[in-house]
């Protein structure tokens, strides 16, 4: 592989990794704070992508679609937590699996009913449709750089919110001892709604910004969910920092493997996970 191809693949790997982080961070946040394993998390990625398709077609503006879809995702998150997840807090993990797998079926059926099963695509917004010249012969699409930048901004805001704000302190405290948080006069149910809605929003955001660079197909949510599980397990359950590092590793390994070792590329990240778990059974950053 020559240097320019290496560089392009590195950028692709980082971009894919950052996108995985966006999704995995929501998954791990909800699990870490609320103890809820949301298997329908990937469905929110899918719904985000399809909403972006729908509203881009409707309004002819990706920016508008971005705003509307993101808002709808937040509302969906609030509704799911208020009416469904709320019944899970005092139940065991099996009930969580049953409910959230049920949600996957509902979202998939909705997607199929509303948008059909043919692959769909969204055009890259015109403003970001150009390319940047990296070397004499290599160009890189601006939109992919935009995704990376957006993910970094989200990661930085999450870091700031969780580590520096009072809301973040309450979220972390809830992770440690939710009864004590309530003893301090904090409405924990409201806090959980906020956290869950943020999780759903992050997954949908990833779907929305991915829409122009992937094809929208049924089952896209499950595929990404599995990769996210790999990220969350490698990073350490519940650790956002771990998810960030793991997502970048997984993104880069997956991208290079598909170029360098196409024969085993589909299993590369699982091999990676197995290797890491051999050395660190709790993941890279134990929470």
């Amino acid at each position, binding site marked *: 592989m020559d240097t320019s191809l290496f560089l392009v693949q590195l950028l692709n790997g980082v971009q894919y990794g950052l996108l995985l982080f966006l999704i995995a961070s929501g998954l791990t946040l909800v699990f870490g704070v609320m103890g809820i394993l949301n298997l329908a998390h990937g469905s929110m990625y899918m719904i985000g992508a399809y909403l972006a398709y729908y509203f881009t077609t409707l309004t002819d503006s990706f920016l508008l679609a971005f705003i509307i879809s993101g808002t709808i995702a937040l509302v969906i998150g609030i509704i799911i937590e208020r009416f469904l997840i709320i019944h899970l807090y005092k139940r065991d993990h099996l009930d969580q699996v049953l409910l959230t797998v049920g949600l996957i079926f509902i979202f998939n059926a909705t997607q199929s009913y509303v948008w059909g099963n043919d692959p769909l695509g969204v055009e890259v917004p015109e403003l970001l449709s150009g390319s940047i010249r990296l070397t004499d012969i290599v160009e890189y699409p601006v939109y992919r750089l935009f995704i990376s930048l957006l993910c970094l901004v989200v990661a930085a805001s999450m870091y700031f919110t969780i580590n520096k704000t009072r809301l973040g302190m*309450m979220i*972390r405290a809830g992770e*440690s001892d939710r009864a004590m948080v309530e003893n*301090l*006069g904090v*409405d924990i149910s409201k806090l959980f709604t906020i956290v869950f809605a943020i999780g759903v929003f992050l997954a949908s955001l990833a779907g929305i910004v991915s829409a122009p660079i992937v094809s929208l197909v049924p089952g896209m949510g499950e595929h990404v969910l599995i990769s996210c599980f790999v990220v969350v397990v490698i990073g350490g359950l519940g650790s956002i920092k771990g998810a960030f590092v793991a997502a970048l590793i997984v993104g880069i390994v997956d991208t290079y493997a598909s170029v360098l070792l196409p024969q085993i590329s589909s299993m590369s990240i699982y091999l990676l996970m197995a290797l890491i778990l051999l050395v660190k059974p709790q993941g890279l950053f134990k929470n």
Partner: protein
Amino acid sequence: MQNILEVHGLQTLYGESHILHGVSFDIKAGETVSIMGRNGMGKSTTLKSILGIAPPRSGSVIYKGEDITRLPTWKRMRQDIAYVPEGRGMFHNLTVKEHLQMAARKNSRGETNWTYDQVLEVFPRLTERLTNKGTQLSGGEQQMLAIGRALLTNPDLLILDEATEGLAPLIRKEIWQVIRQIKDSGVSTIIVDKNIKVLNELCEQHILIVKGKVVFNGDSETLNENKEFIEQSLAV
């Protein structure tokens, strides 16, 4: 003087086991009250029933003239009640500073009687530990942090479960000193502890709970008159 808290006929169960059998008592505003009793007699459960952590099956909790028996815990706390639980409730992933920052708020009347700086003044030991995680502190420091955190919610009623249990004598002395300071500031306080001598001198009212029932409720003078009975009830 008005009652800040009236507890009527609390019957509380944990699953099948009946813990409280009709606990009743009143607390006057501004007073410091001790709750005594051997382990497993229902002291902590009484506090938890008042706070809604272990909701009573029947009976009522009247706070500042309002029935709060059915309110969720966090809403009671918002009415200026603060709780320092047995075990102190430290967060393993928050620093000392963050414990104080996350809890701090004005009381329901918008007053700030305790500030971050004041709490550190009262507990100078915490100043050296600001960047440590809550669970990295010694037992005494944890207790100081738990009390400091409770004060930053600017309560009218402070509830301390096992205020000095398991602490070194010097640290105990320091904690009692602070509780005295809190008392002087006019905050009503309920203290569960085993140290009769200190409680006798500190509290206006004493409640003894045996097997989920109040068997003694009186002032320090009456306590002294019934000293033998009280000591018998507390002896293991």
